[in-house]
């Protein structure tokens, strides 16, 4: 006979464990681990001392007011900040246990595994087909039949195929805002990334297109890990599993401001039972 289950009496709430995101969660593996990360743009310290873990097959939302460093943190996860002259990062970021900013790590190789969807849809001035085939092509895929298959599969997964299948040769710029954003998502998933980073992917879209993008995110969750920056708190509650709340810390003495991570935990807890008064003020709409 098996011994009785040891935690058979745990029908009591255990908030400490549930609130700790690092506490070896029952969910997927740790994809990103940030430890005491600070990021500068030249002399401006945009983010100070951020530590958080991102888990596999989850949607992690980064919320907070403008200037709190959400986008900066997001762009640190696939080294997009490398492209900004004067950007500098301190602290440790690891991706699947490997240092992301290690000496031998190529930013190009990082970005092939960690894709990004931007705030403003940015389709290339190429045909719809060539937009989606762009990533596979730069990875060396030349076979026409396989490219056709990748393009169709990616567009289907981005819920755009039915709208564009008859006009794949038309310019990607001819699409509406919501379609263009779904094209950009199709372009991102065409290279089969491990993680998809999204920087306010629906902020330029109407509610219907936003709904489509959110459905898409929930759909993609089974295959990808998603980190999303959003200004829209309803969006965070609708789609995300975990939420990180960022806050602008202003110093009166030397008039500097910097972004800090105030609270990070399961989305439900952040919105219904926040530990920090600033989080409570933000999620209830009394601030920012």
């Amino acid at each position, binding site marked *: 006979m098996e011994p009785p289950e040891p935690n058979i009496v745990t029908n009591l709430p255990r908030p400490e464990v549930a609130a700790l995101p690092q506490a070896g969660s029952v969910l997927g593996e740790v994809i990103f681990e940030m430890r005491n990360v600070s990021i500068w743009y030249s002399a401006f310290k945009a983010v100070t001392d951020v530590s958080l873990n991102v888990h596999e097959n989850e949607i992690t939302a980064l919320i907070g007011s403008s200037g709190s460093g959400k986008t900066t943190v997001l762009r640190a996860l696939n080294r997009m900040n490398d*492209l900004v002259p004067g950007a500098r990062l301190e602290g440790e970021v690891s991706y699947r246990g490997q240092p992301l900013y290690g000496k031998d790590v190529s930013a190009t190789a990082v970005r092939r595994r960690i894709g990004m969807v931007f705030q403003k849809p940015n389709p*290339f*001035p190429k045909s719809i087909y060539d937009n989606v085939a762009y990533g596979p092509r730069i990875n060396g895929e030349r076979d026409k039949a396989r490219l056709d298959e990748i393009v169709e599969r990616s567009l289907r997964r981005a819920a755009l195929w039915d709208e564009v299948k008859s006009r794949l040769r038309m*310019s990607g*710029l001819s699409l509406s805002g919501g379609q263009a954003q779904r094209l*950009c998502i199709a372009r991102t998933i065409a290279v089969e990334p491990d993680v998809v980073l999204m920087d306010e992917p629906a902020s330029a879209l109407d509610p219907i297109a936003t709904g489509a993008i959110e459905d898409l995110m929930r759909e993609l969750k089974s295959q990808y890990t998603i980190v999303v920056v959003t200004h829209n708190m309803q969006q965070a509650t609708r789609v995300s599993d975990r939420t990180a709340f960022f806050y602008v810390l202003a110093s009166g003495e030397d008039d500097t401001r910097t972004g800090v991570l105030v609270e990070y935990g399961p989305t439900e807890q952040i919105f219904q039972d926040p530990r920090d008064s600033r989080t409570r003020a933000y999620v209830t709409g009394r601030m920012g």
Partner: protein
Amino acid sequence: MAPAPSSQQKVDLREPRSWRRTRNRIATALMALSFVLVIIPLGFVLFTVIAKGASVINWSFLTRSIPPNVLPASFGGIGPAVLGTLEITALATVLAVPLGILGAIYLNEYGGRRPLARLIGFMADVMTGVPSIVMGLFIFSVWVLHFGFSGLAGAFALGCLMLPIVIRSTDEMLKLVPDALREGSYALGATKARVTLTVVLPAALGGIVSGALLAVARAAGETAPLLFTILAVTTANPNVFSGANTSLPSQIFVNASSPYVGAEARGWGAALTLIAIAFILMIAARLVTARFARFVR
């Protein structure tokens, strides 16, 4: 159906008579006047050249060799000058356009704020302001004195003139490519070279090509850099790499300073031919731009 009578108070939405309205009208009239003033010299030049040059132009005028100046307009033509202009300009284009485009790519995509890039950008601006005759003298002293007159020397001088124009126009076009496109490509794991070749250049190509063609048209009409580099001979020289040559601008210069009626008429014909070549290049530039802009809109 007439609108139902309204009990609302009537609102006057007409522009009130005021000094603002008067100023607006004066400014509009001034702009229309400047437009007319700009058009007058252009139209006059075109009209004069067509009026005096059209009568002599026909196929044999464009192909026959250049006769002695004393002969009347019905004799000979400007064949060697047409050939010279085409071959020298083509060679100058081959020398200057790729170099200028690559230089601009370095300036805009790779150099960033490095001192070398800043220096090159500054020098290109300075070169734009160098008088074309100085370019001719420069090539004369460093090339012609050692290797003699040739179409190649002329192409060097014209190339020096085109280079800063190509660099500047390409640079401006590359600056117009939104960074969002570059980031989109980087985010898919593209290297810098890939981003430049597959996203930035295609997006800017229409503007780059039309800028380059404008530089070509400008160079095709230059006289001064050619005076010391190719001379002005009367027989066709299909070998652009050696021996003195001639060109339409040089021929216009020679004929215009000649007292003979026939030579003068041939000069007008050459001027009209040159304008026609420039015009064709401009149209080509427009067509190319439209062709490449297919996906940009």
